[in-house]
């Protein structure tokens, strides 16, 4: 199925919504300018402090929370507000555009996905809330009930955002939609819940104390953002360190250069295709990077590091040695288990070990076999699915290779 039109559809919807909201706001003019300005500044600051680089779920939590709370703002220091849904979208859009100027100037491309998601989620929240609020539908909801109502609306918005994000990622990468959506929903528990709670609290706090609530409450959320950023940074360096530990075998001449990285990236792709969760994927990737590390303990290098052609008993011995080395490194012990069991028959293996085994064998067989190598290698793997390689993993590998145009999908 061709998935690219999905991106175009989402972007068009966002553009239409943004254009109509801007037009409506231009016609009627801005209501409550100081409130609009304050929230605009908050969203701009949030966008300015956005992460770039590290792969994270919500790059600008402060901007997201500020935008949502403006969409759900019903009162300002006890006075009812009159900005409708169009103005909420227009102000957030303007602030987000303004906040992304420095990112553009630094040469990061315009993040259309990010903008589209922001516009659509704010539009959704504002359209759900503002018309009903100004018609007095929520007048019966007092006190705690009103707070819970806002929270429920935000939860709904967050769900929509997760679906949007998963759809965009699916369209961009063509990974299966289900696991992507599951990952997005799982991330809602972390920073997503903090954004929702902050959005609700800001709307309520502005209703009680006025605009002073904004700076007072931005600070704790900035703290959250900082912790997440540090967490993301240390994860990145950790991955780099494991990758270079993995290269020890290459430097020492046990395996060909680039082998570990190649196996790891293919494993990740297969893992995605099979719908592994994020934590499982990270264990898989680390294990794939270090799958050959047991060879460091060998006296004589295996010719070209090709373990797939060795007798099974020898393969298992090297795998166990590798597991022992990995256990010493302080990496998650799940990684050591995968490395240890990579040479077992597939029916006894955990799924990550099956993937590592099949992918490693494919890479080793395809490496020096010339132009027809990949196809022959895949065929050999298919013939050995009785005992050594899991059939579903091999098929998934074939799909991944076909998708990346690395080789033609072999008829089978």
């Amino acid at each position, binding site marked *: 199925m061709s998935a690219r039109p999905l991106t175009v559809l989402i972007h068009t919807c966002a553009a239409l919504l943004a254009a109509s909201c801007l037009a409506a706001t231009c016609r009627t003019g801005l209501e409550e300018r100081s409130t609009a300005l304050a929230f605009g500044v908050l969203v701009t600051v949030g966008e300015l402090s956005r992460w770039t680089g590290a792969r994270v779920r919500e790059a600008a939590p402060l901007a997201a929370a500020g935008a949502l709370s403006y969409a759900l703002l019903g009162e300002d220091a006890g006075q009812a507000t009159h900005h409708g849904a169009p103005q909420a979208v227009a102000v957030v859009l303007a602030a987000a555009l303004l906040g992304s100027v420095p990112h553009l100037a630094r040469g990061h491309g315009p993040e259309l996905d990010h903008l589209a998601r922001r516009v659509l989620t704010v539009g959704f929240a504002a359209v759900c809330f503002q018309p009903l609020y100004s018609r007095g539908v929520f007048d019966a909801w007092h006190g*705690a009930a009103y*707070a819970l109502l806002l929270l429920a609306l935000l939860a709904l918005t967050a769900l929509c955002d997760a679906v949007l994000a998963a759809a965009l990622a699916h369209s961009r990468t063509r990974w299966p939609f289900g696991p992507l959506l599951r990952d997005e929903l799982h991330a809602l528990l972390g920073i997503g819940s903090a954004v929702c709670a902050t959005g609700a609290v800001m709307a309520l706090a502005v209703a009680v104390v006025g605009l002073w*609530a904004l700076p007072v409450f931005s600070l704790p959320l900035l703290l959250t953002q900082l912790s997440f950023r540090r967490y993301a940074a240390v994860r990145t*360096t950790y991955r780099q360190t494991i990758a270079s*530990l993995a290269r020890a075998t290459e430097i020492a001449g046990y395996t060909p250069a680039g082998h570990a990285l190649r196996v790891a990236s293919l494993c990740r792709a297969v893992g995605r295709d099979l719908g592994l969760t994020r934590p499982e994927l990270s264990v898989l990737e680390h294990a794939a990077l270090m799958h050959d590390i047991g060879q460091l303990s060998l006296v004589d290098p295996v010719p070209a590091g090709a373990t797939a052609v060795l007798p099974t008993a020898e393969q298992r011995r090297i795998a166990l040695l590798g597991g022992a080395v990995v256990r010493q490194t302080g990496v998650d012990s799940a990684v050591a288990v995968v490395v240890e069991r990579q040479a077992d028959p597939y029916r006894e293996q955990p799924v990550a070990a099956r993937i590592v085994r099949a992918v490693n064998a494919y890479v080793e067989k395809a490496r020096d076999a010339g132009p027809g190598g990949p196809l022959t290698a895949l065929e050999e793997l298919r013939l050995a699915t009785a005992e050594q390689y899991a059939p579903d993993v091999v098929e998934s590998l074939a799909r991944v290779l076909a998708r990346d145009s690395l080789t033609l999908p072999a008829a089978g």
Partner: protein
Amino acid sequence: MEAVPRRARAYVACTVLGALFCLLPLPATRVSWSAVALLALVYAACEQAAARWRVAGTFYPVLLAGAFLLPPSAAALVALPGALLSRADQRPRLPRRGRRAAQLVLGVWAASAVHGALGGRDAVVASDFPYALAPAGAAVLAFCLVLTALDGGLRVLTEHVPLRRAWRGLFVRSLAPVAVHGLAGLMMAVLWRSPYGPVAALLVLLPMCVSWWAFAQYHRERAAHQATIRALVQAVDIKDGYTRGHSERVGQASMMIARELGMDDERVEVLRFAGILHDVGKLGVPTRLLRKDGPLTPEERRVIELHPEYGHEMVRGIGFLGEARAAVLHHHERLDGSGYPYGLVGTQIPESARVVAVADAFDAMTSTRSYRRARPVPVALQELERCAGSQFDPRMVTALVRALVRDGWHPAVTAQEEPRVPAPPAPVAAPARAHP
């Protein structure tokens, strides 16, 4: 573990008595007991969650919200159940929990008293901003002062640190986080008194909890990361038997030089890593050559001299190492251009590499190798000074000498290392050469 000193015990007893005195007027206080119970419950729950995530530190927003909402003795009561149920890592557990609870009771009591005296509680009820920020700020200051004063007092009694040093560091470090917690607490208090009630107030805690969780994850991941780096180094140590512990010591000496040169903390840390990882390329050199006793043939020497390039090849993908990567590549260059791999001259050699070169040579001379015994520190320093200018950067050598004169050389002894024998002064023979 030695018994708690008697003075410290008396100090803790006084603290507990003070806390009890704070709680004394409770029966006569008119207060909403359900609010006290709810806050105490939430605080205890947060403490338990912190224990599960292994976060160091206390969850102050709830306590400070209590201080902003309730009269002093009732606010102090909020801290009691959570602190008494909290986890104590070291023995004796009961006195530790008691001390903690008493400190928090006193701190919250002081905060609430200051806040009430400045008319903060009325400001919270009327949500009178920005005035409400002033009493809240004063209360945060009082809270911080009391807690750090009590902690500092105990440190003075048990560790004999001078009072001012014990207290000032604690106070400065804890003020910023407590201030952020204070803002969250103020928001909680305002929302609690608003028509939206306690439900809205508890929502404030969610982002704080998430931030905490992320912080705990960060620490876990960082520990794992450091363990992995150590594993890289251990892999070298396994191959190269007689340099055991060498990497850690070179890291330490590099750190001393960097600090003496007045580099900022971040750069000092990077140079420590540079020292630790400088020989990581030996993973690529055949074990037989590394362990060979006796002189090497020119052929073998050339193979061993490839290790800086191997090492650079390994670590160049690790972003945070920064200039440490250049140090790994160039730590065998000499100022006069006779080093390897590129034969760079003078300032062409990166500064980090010049630091590591001196640290490496120093440790190579002062530790015992299979082919010779360790030389004493002064002899090694003389040797370094003799080669300064031709082989080493004189600035780095001077810095090392100054640092060693002031602090002495106390290399961290790793577990596998044999105790070092004090070596007799060896006659200065061959020019200082860092082991190849």
